[in-house]
């Protein structure tokens, strides 16, 4: 656990000093919101029903940028050699990286969500704890498999370009459940319906967290 924390702290420190990925993640997320505003011209009448989808597309796109950086950082100055030399299980490296990516994604989500409230004139109050829960589980589902696939993409000649192509088909269940859950919270307010999407996201996170942890050693670039 301490080892995981060491890797997580390293990544957080680098990020908070350079702010490379957070800046681009936030900016891109907000750009997506604005683009959607123009792309869906006539949606003023039913804003609440389209917001969950728009929100998660913005989250997913900005997360892809963040996930790409998570290994690009190591490639600079051959830092990956140092990472490989750490005498710990590869699963520990994975967990550290995954948690770092989750933290970045959650920070980006918080800011994008605030912008979303402003742009689409929404008010939330009691829903916030539920939203936070959905955001956390959804982000974990995204980053568990995203961190592994980011390492996979880093192995290829295309690098950053490949990640969204291989990531989006895989995370479809999470994306779908997250949109569904957000829709329930913002629109129908029938919180007992949340069980199913939350269960799908949790199952996804647990299955792919475990599998990625075990398979990570095969895809780490050497």
């Amino acid at each position, binding site marked *: 656990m301490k080892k995981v924390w060491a890797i997580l702290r390293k990544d957080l420190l680098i990020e908070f000093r350079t702010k490379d990925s957070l800046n681009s993640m936030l900016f891109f997320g907000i750009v997506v919101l604005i683009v959607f505003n123009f792309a869906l011209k006539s949606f003023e009448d039913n804003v609440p029903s389209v917001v969950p989808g728009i929100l998660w597309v913005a989250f997913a796109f900005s997360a892809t940028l963040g996930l790409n950086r998570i290994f690009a950082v190591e490639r600079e100055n051959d830092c990956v050699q140092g990472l490989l030399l750490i005498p710990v299980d590869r699963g520990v490296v994975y967990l550290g990286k995954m948690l770092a990516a989750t933290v970045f994604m959650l920070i980006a989500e918080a800011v994008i969500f605030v912008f979303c409230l402003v742009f689409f004139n929404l008010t939330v109050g009691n829903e916030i704890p539920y939203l936070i829960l959905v955001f956390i589980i959804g982000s974990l589902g995204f980053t568990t*498999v995203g961190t*592994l*696939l980011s390492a*996979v993409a880093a*192995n*290829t*000649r*295309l690098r950053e370009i*490949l990640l969204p*192509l*291989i990531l989006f*088909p*895989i995370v*479809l*269940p999470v994306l*779908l*459940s997250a949109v*569904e859950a957000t829709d329930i919270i913002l629109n129908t307010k029938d919180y007992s319906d949340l069980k*199913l999407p939350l269960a*799908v996201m949790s*199952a*996804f996170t647990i*299955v*792919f967290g475990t*599998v*990625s942890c075990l*398979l990570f050693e*095969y*895809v780490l670039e050497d």
Partner: protein
Amino acid sequence: MGRRFSSRVDTVLWPILFLTMTLALYLAMIGAPKEATMGDLQRIFYFHVSAAIAGLTAFAVNFVASLIYLAQKRPRWDDLALSGAEIGVLFMVMVLVTGPIWAKPVWMVWWTWSPRLTSSLVLCMLYAAYLLIRRYIEDPERRALVSAVFAIIAFLDAPLVWFSIRWWRDIHPSAMLETGGLSPSMRPALVVSWAAFQLLLIYLLRRRYYLQVMRSELEILERQIARIV
């Protein structure tokens, strides 16, 4: 080298495949009765379903071969995994082409986002992504490792994709098979065309696998020559 792959299995398999396919074609087009409401259009169903089953089998082959590769690291398993993925995509494309041809006159639309359609499409995309990853890694060993990891993730993802989109409205005529609603007079056509597609799968897998083994060996030889020169 060529002799090694022209095995006796194929000389037996090839005529059997030919006969089964001819029989399947006959049964589906002429033997099976005309469907009451959909008419002759329904006949595409025999190939549609059989291709879907063959495609899923091919993806299962890819999954098992990838698992064994990770355990044993023998390049032959990677060759088999690649063959499985490629032929699986081929069959899934067949499914995705025959589906809309049938759906347009019956459902009045080419495509609808029902769970089964969406899952088939996503499945096809997952394995297209697998082939894409392979394309962009040069080192054979690295390519085998990384793509095996992706293959395992993709295969485990398939049931989750299916369950997560299940709560959507499904208009796909799946109940017909599950409840045994298919008329007994149509059953021979389905069974034979299922068998024909499974045989076709085996045949194609073998051919593709041998081709891949040769390609891998050629790659190794080329590397050796490059080192000498």
